[in-house]
Every structure is written in C-alpha cells, then in structure tokens.
C-alpha cells in the first residue's frame, strides 16, 4: 500500500547528502537579500493572515505549544526574508481547548472576524474534521500538519477541496512501525513474533488498534494483548502488569505526554523491561519526555516525523533550540513545513485569494527544497498533494510522499535508527531502560 512512499525514502538518502553542500551557498546568499528585502518590503504590505487552531488550554495544551513554536519559527524566518509577495505573514491564534464545538466557533471567528486568509489545524483529528468543514464553506485553504486520522481524506471528504494534509496517515505510521519490527531482526538477530498494544482509550488509541489489526497478518505478527487506559491516568501499574503477563516480543504504544512518562516510570517500578518498545510519536516525542525521564528512557523507540539528527534537520534544530530552548520535534517540524508550503503556494498563485491558493496547492510540487528556503526538513524530499488509493479506499489531497523514520533514545537523545540507509546508528537491543 505504501510502496511509493517507501521508494521515496530509499531515494532520499543519497541525494540528501549531495544537496547539502549545494544548498549551503544559497543559504549564505540569503542574509544579503534579507536585509534589503526586510527594509523595503516586510514592514509595508498588509499582513497575510494565517489562522491557527490548536488547544492552548485544557488537557492537551502541551501539544499546541510545540506546534506553535514551529509555526512562529517559520513565520519569523519568512518575514525576515521579505515575507510573502512582499507582505509579512501574521499568525492569528485560535484555541479549541480540545472540543469540536469550540473548534468550529474559533474557525468561524478567525475567518469572519479576523479575516484570516489561510488556516492550519488542528492537533486532534476530531476537531480538524469540524474545522475543515468551516474552511470549506468559506473557501479558506487549510492544511493540517499533524492530523493523522485516515478518515479525514476518505471518500466522504472528496468534495472538500480546500483541505490538504501534509502528514502521513495513521495506517502509514503503523505499517512503518511493523516494518521496523520485521527489519530489526537484521540487527538484533532475534525475530519479533508477538506484539502487544499499549494505548490511550481516546481516538488515537483506537486508530493504533485498528491499523495494527489491518496489517498484522501481512507481517506475520501475533497480537497478544490490547491494553488501554483513560488519558491522564492516575496509575498504570495494572496495565503494565497485563503487558508483563502477556510477555510480547515488542510493545507498540500511543500516549499523550503525561501518560507516556508515567508508563516508562511504571515499567521500571514493576520491574519489567520489554525488549522493544515502539511508540507512535505523540507524547513520546514531546521534548519533555527525555528531560523528565532521564536515563530510564533509553531504548524507547518511536516513529518520528522529524529528528534533529536527520541530515536536513541538524542545522534548523540548532537554530530552533537557540530560540526556544527545546529541540524541534515532529509536530514543530511539520507545522514549520506547512507555513513554507503556504508561502510557496501563495507565491505561485500570485495572490492570497482562497480559490487561487487552493489551485496552487493542488498543483504544488516541491522537490528537495522550498524556493527561497531550506531543504525539506522532514524525512522525505518531495511534497505533493495527490488523490490516490490506500488499502482499497480512495483518498484525496494527501501528501503521498510523506513518510516517517524510526528513532530510538540512546544516551539521552533521539537517534534515527531506521530506515537503515538513513543512518549509521544501530538499534540498541534489548532496550536498556536505564
């Protein structure tokens, strides 16, 4: 199903190395232009308004914070280089507090009161679904950077031609996770036969379970336990005991940051060291995950949409860390990229008019690097929104080139370990958790 995506990854490795040297002069040239451009253009034009709708308050506000860092970083960068069509970008923030009704209300406010030209959001697919409808109704182009729910772009949404998705779909994530499990034998010498799922009972967890069931037979894996809990759990020891009892070769998990932290602590407390833990990003890749857990996080692996050690990521991560004091994570990197996509599309359309930008997005094809910007910082080298079929279902306007890597925490930092041709780092097996 994701053959195309895989081949993209395969190709990405080598060119990325070459392009790096080429890109350097372009980057150096930029500051010269930038000063000139900044003086003439940036402060003058009417700002182009980019609406963002994320949870700023409520239980999942931490995710919103990471996303907005990425957006702010990109906007600063773009404005410093003269903005878009000579006009500065301006971010107008909305807060959906995790609630679809509030999301709808905010979308309406941003569009009709704040007159935003573009929209980004949300971090909960359930809210994205509602917000996308509002954008469609008012003809405001919207890109979601991180909503991975497959359904968002399925046949029911065929007509929603103002809505685009950058990130991979859940099924892509999960299939890559399973692929990693299989490929790992090559390095560890042990075959993974049984798996267990540990996950939140919220929508994210349901998706993990659904997708694992979709692919497990194809990869010859036996699902021996499905263990779930309610978000912000007070205690996970019962769950950990259930996993311990099932004793799988690998655990797949998806949790928000608080539960992810508690999970690893509880593994230690219950004296259980699974040999392999692979997470579906989310809380596990939140910057505070490693900070909070310290050495006991070593060995946890996760899907990453971005990692600082990716060839294209090292530089931006340094700047980003200088600015915010934390590493760029997948959410920050993806939202950073979306801002650049909007810039590119607007410049291609020559206006910010919704219809024109939508057309430009439909036809957009970014290969390697953004015009006037960096190379794509994510682990793939092309961005194009396409209609296609996935597992026999039609999908619309997804970035089919999107893919993910797998990283593992080693010596207190995320190290990319898969695909193997992307990295030198070897899998630490069994996961030490200390």
């Amino acid at each position, binding site marked *: 199903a994701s053959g195309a995506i895989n081949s993209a990854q395969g190709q990405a490795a080598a060119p990325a190395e070459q392009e790096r040297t080429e890109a350097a002069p372009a980057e150096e040239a930029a500051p010269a232009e930038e000063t000139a451009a900044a003086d003439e253009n940036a402060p003058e034009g009417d700002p182009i308004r980019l609406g963002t709708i994320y949870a700023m308050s409520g239980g999942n506000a931490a995710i919103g914070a990471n996303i907005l860092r990425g957006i702010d970083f990109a906007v600063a960068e773009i404005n410093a280089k003269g903005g878009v069509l000579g006009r500065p970008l301006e971010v107008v923030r909305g807060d959906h507090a995790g609630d679809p009704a509030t999301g709808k209300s905010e979308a309406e406010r941003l569009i009709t009161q704040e007159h935003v030209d573009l929209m980004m959001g949300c971090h909960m697919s359930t809210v994205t679904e509602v917000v996308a409808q509002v954008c469609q109704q008012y003809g405001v182009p919207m890109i979601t950077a991180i909503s991975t729910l497959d359904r968002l772009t399925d046949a029911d949404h065929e007509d929603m031609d103002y809505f685009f998705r950058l990130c991979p779909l859940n099924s892509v994530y999960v299939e890559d996770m399973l692929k990693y499990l299989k490929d790992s034998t090559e390095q560890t010498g042990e075959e993974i036969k049984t798996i267990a799922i540990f996950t939140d009972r919220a929508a994210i967890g349901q998706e993990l379970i659904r997708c694992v069931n979709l692919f497990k037979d194809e990869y010859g894996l036996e699902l021996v336990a499905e263990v779930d809990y309610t978000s912000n759990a007070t205690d996970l020891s*019962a769950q950990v005991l259930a996993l311990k009892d099932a004793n799988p070769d690998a655990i797949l998990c998806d949790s928000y940051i608080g539960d992810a932290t508690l999970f690893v602590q509880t593994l230690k407390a219950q004296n259980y060291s699974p040999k392999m833990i692979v997470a579906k990003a989310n809380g596990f890749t939140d910057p505070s995950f490693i900070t909070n857990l310290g050495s006991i996080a070593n060995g946890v692996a996760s899907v990453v949409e971005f990692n600082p050690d990716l060839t294209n990521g090292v530089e931006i991560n340094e700047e980003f860390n200088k600015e915010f004091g934390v590493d760029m994570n997948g959410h920050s990197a993806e939202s950073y990229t979306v801002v650049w996509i909007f810039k590119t599309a607007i410049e291609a359309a020559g206006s910010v008019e919704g219809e024109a930008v939508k057309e430009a997005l439909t036809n957009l094809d970014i290969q390697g690097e953004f015009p006037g910007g960096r190379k794509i910082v994510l682990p793939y080298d092309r961005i194009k929104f396409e209609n296609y079929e996935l597992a026999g279902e039609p999908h619309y306007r997804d970035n089919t080139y999107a893919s993910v890597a797998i990283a593992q925490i080693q010596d207190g930092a995320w190290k990319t370990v898969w695909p193997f041709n992307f990295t030198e780092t070897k899998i630490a097996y069994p996961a030490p958790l200390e």
Partner: protein
Amino acid sequence: MSTFLQACVNGLLMGGFYSLMGMGQNVIFGVMKIVNFCHGEMLMVGMYLTFVLYTFFGIDPYLSVPIVAVVMFLFGALIQHTLITPSLGTKSFTNLLFLTVGLGLLLSNGALVIFGSTYYTINTPYSQTYINLGPVTMALPRLISFGVLVVISSALFAFLKYTTTGKQIRAVSQNPVGAEVVGINVKSIYILTYGIGVALAGVAGSLLTGFYTIFPTAGASFGFRALIVVVVGGLGSIPGAFLAGIFLGLLETMVALFISPSYSDLIVFVTFIVILVVRQTIIARRR
C-alpha cells in the same frame, strides 16, 4: 500468583493516595457539608509548590512536605476566610458547590498561565530506586510516600478523636449554632478545617511528585477519586476514608487484572453507584 501479589501491593500503594485525598475532602465535608470540587486542583498546587521548592531552592520533595503543608494550610485558610465563609451564610448548597468548581477552574488555569503546559517531573537521586521483596517490586518513592501518609492519617485520626480541637471540629460539624453556644469560635474552626483539608491535598500532591508528572490538569482524576473515597467510606469518617481509599486502589487493580484494564473505570463508577445506593437504602430502612 506473583502478578496477583504485585497487583495487591500496587493497589495498596495507590490506594494510600486516594485515602489521603479522601480524608482531606472528608474533613471539609464533615464540617461544612460542602463538597470541595477543587480538591484535585489543590493537589496540583501542592505538586507545583514542591516542584518550585525543588527547582529553585533545591529542597528534596520529601523535606518539602512540611513546608507544603504549612503553605497550603495558609492558602486554604485564606480561601475559606475570603470566599467560602461569606458564602456559607447564603446556605445555598448549589452556590457553594459552584464556588469550589470556580476555584478549581481558577487554579488549573492559573497554573497554565504561570507554568505553561509543559509536563514536569522531579528527578531525585533515589527516584529510580526499587526494592524487591520476593516476587514483588516497589519503587522507593512510592513506599516512602505510603509510609508518610499512614503516619499522617493516624495523626489526623487521633487529632480529631482525642484532642479538644478535634472535638470542637466534630461539634461544629453537627451543629454550628450549638457550638457557638458552648463557646466554640465557629469561623476559626471553619478556617482550620478547610486549611487542614487543603493541606492534606497539598501533601498528597507533594508526595505524588516522586512518581507522577506535574501539569495544570494533573489533579482532575485524583479529585474525583477523592469523592468516591469519601462517599464509600462514609461522610465524616476518617478511618472509613482510609479504608475506602485502599479499597478503591485495590478494586482498580483487581478489575484491571481479572477483567480488563479497559473496564476498570467503568466498573469503578458502577460499583460506586451501587455501594452508595445500597448503603443509603439500608440507612433509610433503619429509620
């Protein structure tokens, strides 16, 4: 078998926290007949306080327990004096209920404003120390916490049962006017009890930082469990709250172990309703 033993120990250790929260809630409810709906948020404030003491002053979380207790007591006393006491006069249970709900909103969003949405933990040299007792493993912080809270609960029980102040508290809880008649300063007792209740929640928060993340809405799940504990253990009964807390902790782990972790919440809520209804029916019959 070893899983079962481990589950028992886990339930016991966790139940201790529920007990502590429940006892705080119970002291407040017993005396003022108000359900403190911001009890979980008070726990959260205690967590942040411990965090601040550790990060900026390097005070060990367990050493900060007394400091947190005092600060939270004063904080509770202030709230009682400025907000709750005046509203008690209206005799409106609804208003009092939503007063504490509003306080909860205020506290959790206040934490969000001050500390942001980041999840923090406190890592002490011993946070990753584990003790093995035969087939059972226990994290040292949890064990210490449990010990501390057993001491606190017994102290509280003795305080209410045997000291003059304790008796005054009980007298006020039954009849504030009568208490005034025999010379008890009812308002001070209110301040004292709310202070104690809040301090207990704060201490629970402080102890919890040993193995739980700190974030603005951290208290919510604990707050509701405190309510369950109070009701199951019997309003006003400190030993009841202690046992009910342990019971709840065990129930959660046992349901997760023998039925499914997915249903542990559902079953806990249903059990709660059933216990409540059955007990009240018996009480009503006895009338």
